[in-house]
C-alpha cells in the first residue's frame, strides 16, 4: 500500500516533494490566514464593546434562541459534510451528493436566519452599520462570516451539480475534502463568534 502510494505520487502533479497534496496545503494556508482576518475583526469588536455612546446595546437586540438554533444548524452541517466525504470514499456518489445537498441546505438556512436577524436589527431596533461602534463592528464581523457561509453554499451546490451530472467520484475525494475543510472552518469561526459575541455578557 505504501509502495503503491509512493509509486502513484510520482505521476500525480498535485503531489509535491513533501508527499502532500498542494491543493490541500494551499487550503490550510488560506484557512490560517483567514484565522488572522477574523481574529482582527473579533479583537476590534471586543475593543469597542460597551463603548458606544448611543444606540441599542447587544443585550437589547440579541435573540439568543434564534442564534443558538443557527449555531446548531452549522454544527449539524459539519456532520453531514463528513458523512458526504465518508460516502464518497466508499464510492457511494449519490449518497454523498445527498449529504452535500443537506449541508448546503443547512448553510442556506443559516444565511437566511442571519438575513432575518439583520432585518430585525435594522427595522425594529434602528441599528445599522453607521449607528454606533457596536453596529459597525457587529455587522462587519458577522456579515463577513455570512459572506463566507454563502460562498461555501455555492461551492457545495457546484459539487452537488457535478455529482448529478456524473462528473464526481471517489477520485475527486481531495476536491471534496478541500471544500469540507472550508466548510468546517466557517463552523469553527461561528463557534468563536457565538461564544465571544453572543454569549459572553
Amino acid at each position: 500500500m505504501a509502495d503503491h502510494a509512493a509509486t502513484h505520487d510520482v505521476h500525480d502533479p498535485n503531489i509535491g516533494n513533501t508527499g502532500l497534496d498542494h491543493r490541500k496545503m494551499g487550503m490550510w494556508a488560506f484557512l490560517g490566514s483567514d484565522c488572522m482576518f477574523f481574529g482582527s475583526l473579533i479583537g476590534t469588536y471586543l475593543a469597542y464593546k460597551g463603548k458606544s455612546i448611543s444606540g441599542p446595546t447587544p443585550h437589547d437586540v440579541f435573540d439568543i434562541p434564534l442564534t443558538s438554533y443557527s449555531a446548531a444548524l452549522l454544527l449539524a452541517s459539519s456532520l453531514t459534510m463528513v458523512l458526504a466525504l465518508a460516502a464518497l470514499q466508499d464510492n457511494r456518489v449519490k449518497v454523498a451528493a445527498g449529504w452535500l445537498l443537506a449541508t448546503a441546505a443547512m448553510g442556506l438556512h443559516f444565511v437566511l436566519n442571519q438575513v432575518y436577524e439583520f432585518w430585525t436589527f435594522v427595522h425594529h431596533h434602528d441599528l445599522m452599520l453607521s449607528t454606533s461602534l457596536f453596529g459597525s463592528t457587529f455587522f462587519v464581523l458577522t456579515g463577513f462570516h455570512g459572506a463566507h457561509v454563502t460562498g461555501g453554499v455555492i461551492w457545495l451546490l457546484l459539487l452537488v451539480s457535478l455529482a448529478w451530472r456524473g462528473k464526481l467520484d471517489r477520485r475527486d475525494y481531495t476536491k471534496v475534502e478541500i471544500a469540507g475543510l472550508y466548510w468546517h472552518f466557517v463552523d469553527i469561526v461561528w463557534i468563536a463568534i457565538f461564544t465571544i459575541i453572543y454569549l459572553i455578557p
Partner: protein
Amino acid sequence: MADHGTAAATHGGGGGHATVRTYIQVAIALAIITGVEVATLYVPGIPNPVLVISLLVMSAVKFYLVVGFFMHLKYDHGIMRALFVGPLIIAVAIILAVMALFSAFLLLPRPH
C-alpha cells in the same frame, strides 16, 4: 480505481481518519456542549469571571473537536497542523493585543 481513492486519501497527508461512528459521537458531544453553553446563560448567580472562563473553555473544546476530528487535523501531517495552528496562535495574539491597546479586558473591570 479503488486503489486510486485510497491513494487520494493518502495524498492528503493523513495517516488515517475517524470512522462514521466517531463523527456521530463528536456531533453528539458538540450538541451537548452547545446546550450546556446556552443553559449556563440562564443560571442565575454565576460570577462573571466564572461564566466567561467556562464559556471560553467550552468553546475551545468545540473548536478542538471540529478541527481535530471533522477536519482530520488530528490525523493529518505535521505540516498541515503547522500551517493552521501557527496563524491561529497569531490570531489569538492579535485579539489579545487589540484588547490590551483599548484596555478592553474580558475579566477585569473596564475603565470608564
